[in-house]
């Protein structure tokens, strides 16, 4: 048994030999958004391939209708370059777990410390009903939006779009669970707390039916980008922030509750990130050199549909503002703020808020 022996290799370390491309230490198959590729771009860009980048053999398995694993017509929106988008939050697995874990630690510390001090027993009684019925109903909103986004992350044409959608889903589903467990825990400290009242309100209480219709309309959309648009551009400012910041965050403490605001505050920070991602994506599409006009018309049609649903949802929630004993904020003020907020978002995108 004799083979021609190769020369021994002394070291596998960078710099131990010099030859063509021995210093090629950057991914060189994509154009970074800035001067240098970010860590997020390095671990994200082009992991989901397509026939343009770089499937030589095209998709090699198809659905029965002939479509490959991913196709551009999963949305009515058009783009001259789907690969341009980079998520401003630059999220990849490590940053995602760090952030989610910190939020969980903060939420659990606040709840544990609040319970240790006996705080839930001192919540105003009317406020306890608000938490039981309405925060209890709200957890289903977050869950519905989270499952919609979980569905949507299957359809996007690039890894960047799908991963931004995936982390958005993860944030929503975390919040839904945080609220669920928070209510279950304080419920143990408060007498006669009905942990199932929230779901009953969600399914049966007229206050919540507009919101449920809006959420189910998003869940039922077969267009993944419409789902992402409806959630971040429409529902969140007109209903999400309205209820979370415009009511819970402000009304809790005057009613003796200092625990609910930090539990909910994480969601507002989540939304800032998801909004930044969504605006960047929809701005690219609305200003696309070839398809901008088409996309703007499409987005206006989505606005027409989902703003009407969100307005109906918002109006339905109005009675909740008058249910606590202490009423530090008026629905009308919160509503004005949320309309201003969506106005600013649409202004960034060059879109117009449909008239009520």
């Amino acid at each position, binding site marked *: 048994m004799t083979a021609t022996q190769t020369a021994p290799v002394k070291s596998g370390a960078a710099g131990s030999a010099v030859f063509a491309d021995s210093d090629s230490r950057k991914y060189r198959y994509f154009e970074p958004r800035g001067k240098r590729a970010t860590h997020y771009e390095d671990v994200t860009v082009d992991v989901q391939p397509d026939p343009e980048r770089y499937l030589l053999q095209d998709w090699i398995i198809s659905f029965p209708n002939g479509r490959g694993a991913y196709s551009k017509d999963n949305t009515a929106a058009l783009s001259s370059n789907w690969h341009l988008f980079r998520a401003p939050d630059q999220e990849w697995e490590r940053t995602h777990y760090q952030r989610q874990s910190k939020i969980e630690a903060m939420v659990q510390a606040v709840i544990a410390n609040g319970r240790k001090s006996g705080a839930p027993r001192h919540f105003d009684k009317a406020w306890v009903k608000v938490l039981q019925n309405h925060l209890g109903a709200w957890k289903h909103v977050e869950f519905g939006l989270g499952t919609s986004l979980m569905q949507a992350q299957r359809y996007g044409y690039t890894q960047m779009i799908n991963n931004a959608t995936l982390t958005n889903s993860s944030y929503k589903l975390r919040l839904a669970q945080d609220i669920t*467990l928070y209510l279950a825990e304080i419920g143990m400290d408060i007498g006669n707390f009905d942990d199932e009242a929230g779901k009953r309100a969600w399914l049966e209480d007229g206050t919540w039916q507009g919101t449920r219709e809006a959420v189910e309309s998003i869940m039922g959309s077969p267009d993944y980008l419409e789902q992402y648009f409806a959630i971040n551009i429409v529902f969140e400012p007109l209903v999400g922030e309205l209820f979370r910041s415009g009511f819970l965050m402000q009304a809790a403490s005057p009613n003796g509750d200092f625990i609910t605001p930090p539990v909910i505050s994480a969601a507002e920070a989540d939304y800032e990130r998801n909004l930044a991602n969504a605006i960047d994506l929809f701005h690219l599409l609305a200003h696309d050199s070839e398809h901008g006009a088409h996309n703007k018309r499409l987005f206006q049609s989505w606005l027409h549909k989902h703003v009407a649903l969100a307005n109906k949802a918002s109006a339905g929630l109005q009675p909740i503002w008058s249910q606590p004993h202490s009423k530090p904020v008026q629905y009308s003020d919160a509503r004005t703020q949320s309309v201003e907020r969506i106005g600013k978002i649409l202004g960034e995108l060059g879109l117009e808020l449909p008239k009520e």
Partner: protein
Amino acid sequence: MTSTLTLNKITAQKGISVADAAKKIADLGWNPSYVQEAMTFPTDYKITKAPKDPMKQVLRSYFPMQEEKDNRVYGALDAALRGDMFRNVEPRWVEWMKLFLAIIPFPEISAARSMAMVGRLAPGEDLRTGFTMQMVDEFRHSTIQMNLKKWYMENYVDPAGFDITEEAFGKCYATTIGRQFGEGFITGDAITSANVYLTVVAETAFTNTLFVAMPSEAARNGDYALPTVFLSVQSDESRHVGNGHSMLMSMLKEPENHLLLERDMRYAFWQNHAIVDAAIGTFIEYGTTNRDKNKESYAEMWHRWIFEDYYRTYMLPLEKYGIKIHHDDVQTAWKRITEKHYVHKIAQFFSVGWPLNFWRIEAQTDKDFEWFEHKYPGWYAQFGEYWKWYAKLSHRGQTNVTFNADTGYVYPHRCWSSMVPCVIREDIVTDTIDGKLHTFAHELDRWTAVEAFAGEYQGRPTPAMGRFSGRREWESCYHDWDLADAIQDLGFVRTDGKTLVPQPHLRFEEKEMWTLDDVRGHTIKSPLITLREMNEAQREKHLADYRAGFTINPCN
């Protein structure tokens, strides 16, 4: 202070139990009444029983657990650099990581996408949290693996190949096998792809060879990074196995699913064997420099992980639910690995095609020969001369094995089903699909493409089943091209515009490195196009000769 007084008793407060927490979270879902969810990824399976979540973990504990796992992984990577890991790592091993890590992030992220498909099909919400965690896990796996690859690129002596990784993945004649694997998770019948192929077979059976056996070999080659990352990845897999099994149990409840389950178990097991054993078997057996005769060979590991662990304890018990298990398929796969030298023939094929790769493959040496003969008796008679030829032809100016008539090697046909070449020559079969002739590595591969991936199965309509598509035979893409032009078109050329990314050796001197000029003048031929161009008599003779195999000429 009494002996029973502890801090815990002072600070403890009543909490909700894990089971209660899981139950409350499972109650977050509801049946929509205003607008129904769109069923955009259909299945031919019927699922009425809501699957149970066996893990009962919630996101509140999941995220901190994963962050802690990450801290350990990234801490270990830092430590590896401080310990100068790359000074002692075996380049033979790291070179194969250029192929492995080009492939694996796509199947991983495909698994994340596939959770959308099963998430909507499963009735009830019990398992939704399990699917959610798996979705985020797979996002973790994909990006943590891309990070590992970037780390190799930044610290290993020859970064070429890592630097073009995702582009190379889409183009290379070897990565096409990995694309079949990844696309299999997300295309076609949602249950076939996202449950049976991905979770019930790939994750439950074959991740053991991928993520447990491979890290052991990495460590033997001075690579402590891969075990750190991949054992952390594998620690997530037990939850995924639980998800898959729970869905499987729900489907078993419906007798009309049994025929489809038999079909899909058969397809998924066989194709996982064909693809995973080809790739991982080669990495483990041919990417190593460690020839300790006391360590397990890939065949021995396969017997432990796949035969004993998966076949005996997972597949066999399905029979009691009325699922027909094809025992002979498992036996055939085992014989292919042991008696028919499947892995060795694949490694041979990978090395034959080195100019069209994007990593370095060095020749096996005397030390390797001895180990192979010890573990696989008869190996030397079949492969010894080949590797001597490979070593001899690894110097610039020599003619590559594929185009070198002196060697006796015959370039293989490609299997239309698994994309792996038909290396066990006597098993090749042909059939037609839509009037076009195709080649298959084995009768089961033919069955997969012709009978399983069709709109009807054994008289039962299967409208959701996928189809094999695209330019599946890689060689057809470059039929009649000059080898140098094809390499240039693939982008497997270093930035000086002439030196090849792949090299048939580990010699790092500039003068040893092959350039485009060294490979110019050879024409690539597609075996399939050539076969189709033959008349029937020629074709029959060609296939008979092919089945008879080839003999490598003595290398002097």
